[in-house]
């Protein structure tokens, strides 16, 4: 693979939290323009990988290198990473009292564009007339909040979007809708790193990787990785001893 074809390269990424090794040498290459799925059981280190990639506090790697579009971002702040084109749709997005959906979606855009905001809401099957003036607060259901999170990422037009379990929770987008959204993102040049424990998501992937106990254990053809996940991980008798993933606080 040529360097210009690679949008993200993770080399030997290690993270220890509370004296526990959560990421134990992750190596992963994500091709530009692809939809790359990272599959793994609960507690395998998926979300930790997402927070570490984004640069969240408490997720500073103990070792390893992160290269985004040829730039070493390992020591960069969240803001610097975001300005280079990396963003994250949280599995359980934060809520903001008094912040309207319209404003929230505009925050990540290079220039405010209400047409783009409307387009982003439509892309997650929300009616702009209903949602633009609502607040990104407790009045939204968990599913509505997740859709708005995805809309915000879409509106931002990042180089690489990390989507952490975008389909989980009641009232969340269906897999078909997520596939349609990812297709639209790809058309606009966004590479997607999709993190999930559901093997169905590989249907929308160009590439897939399997994460287990903080390591990428397989990467390649989505169908093959899915098969490994279904036949090796799900029945794995070691899953009980897999350390619990550190919840994002």
């Amino acid at each position, binding site marked *: 693979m040529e360097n210009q074809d690679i949008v993200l390269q993770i080399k030997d990424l290690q993270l220890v939290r509370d004296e526990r090794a959560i990421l134990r040498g992750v190596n992963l290459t994500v091709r530009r323009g692809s939809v790359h799925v990272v599959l793994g059981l609960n507690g395998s280190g998926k979300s930790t990988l997402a927070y570490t990639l984004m640069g969240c506090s408490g997720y500073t790697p103990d070792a390893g290198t992160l290269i985004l579009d040829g730039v070493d971002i390992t020591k960069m702040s969240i803001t610097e990473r975001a300005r280079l084109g990396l963003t994250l749709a949280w599995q359980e997005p*934060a809520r*903001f009292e008094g912040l309207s959906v319209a404003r929230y979606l505009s925050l990540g855009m290079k220039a405010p564009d209400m047409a783009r905001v409307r387009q982003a809401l439509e892309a997650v099957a929300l009616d702009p007339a209903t949602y633009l003036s609502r607040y990104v607060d407790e009045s939204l259901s968990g599913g509505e909040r997740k859709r708005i999170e995805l809309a915000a990422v879409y509106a931002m037009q990042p180089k690489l979007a990390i989507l952490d379990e975008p389909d989980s929770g009641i009232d969340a987008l269906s897999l078909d809708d997520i596939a349609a959204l990812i297709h639209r993102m790809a058309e606009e040049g966004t590479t997607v790193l999709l993190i999930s424990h559901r093997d169905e998501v590989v249907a929308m992937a160009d590439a897939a990787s399997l994460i287990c106990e903080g390591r990428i254990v397989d990467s390649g053809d989505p169908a093959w990785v899915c098969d490994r996940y279904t036949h090796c991980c799900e029945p794995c008798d070691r899953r009980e001893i897999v350390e619990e993933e550190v919840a994002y606080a």
Partner: protein
Amino acid sequence: MPDQPVPRHSPRPPQARSDFEAILRAYERSGGNPEFLKSSKIASLIISGNTVLGLNRLPGISAEAETLPDGVRIRLQIAPGARFENPIHLCFGVVPAEGVQRILADFDIGAGAEVEFMAHCTFPNAMQVQHIMEGKIHVGPGATMRYKETHYHGETGGVEVLPKAQVTVDEGGKYFTEFNLSQGRVGRMEFDYVVDVGARGLAELTAKALGYGDDEIIVRETIRLNGEYARGLAKSRIAVRDHARSDVYGTTEGNAPFARGHVDCIEIVRGHAVANAVPIVKVTDDRAMVTHEAAIGAVGKKELETLMARGLDEETAVDVIVRGMLGE
């Protein structure tokens, strides 16, 4: 003796014209739309210092304004059953750098009436200004009163604001008030509202303020749920930074069967600021229930990092969160 009201279109002497224009400009800076104060279709009252610059009544509104040495006494009555297409606009201000303005307000909302007030208090040049508001408010049976007050104090911190109100909400009445002081320096503010709520009545008090420099914010919100099924919410949203200080005392009493009340206080602290919250809940009837929540601290990490992941720097992200919380 009550002053003669100043009709909107009456010729004003040159000094009054100048004051009127100055207060309109200040009103605009505090977020008001001066056109509302000029419209004959919108009820309004404009007071600069102790001078009534404008008073526009509409059918259903009875209003008197009496000049005091250091302020104005207002008596305002809303006729029973009255409804209005637009809010009543109030503008209080002191344009010079120094002065005292004492507003003694007596509002009586007739049974079944529905009325909304939009008040703007503006002290754009204040170096040493004291604004005292002593309100006596009666919301009649089945009536609804909404009162929103926004302040603009300039940037020197030379204002002392003492809004104080005693409110009575009769059976089935509803009273909503929102006080917002988040533009310019606070100076010193001591907000003190006490509301007595009758059977099936409702009271919601919200105080929002942003303090910096050496601003001092004291909020006392007291709701006494005295009638059956009375409901109340005492809510405050305060943000302080630098060396500012905030003290919030939210009190709700459940004194009658099936009364329901809640105290909800959030304070965000940055720098060397100090925040103190004292939610007080008191129940004297075993069928009443009152709850409270208070959170003081820095901006939440997850909220902050979510906005930073959109490309905002930390300071801007904090500002967006705080401004959102304060309803701007």
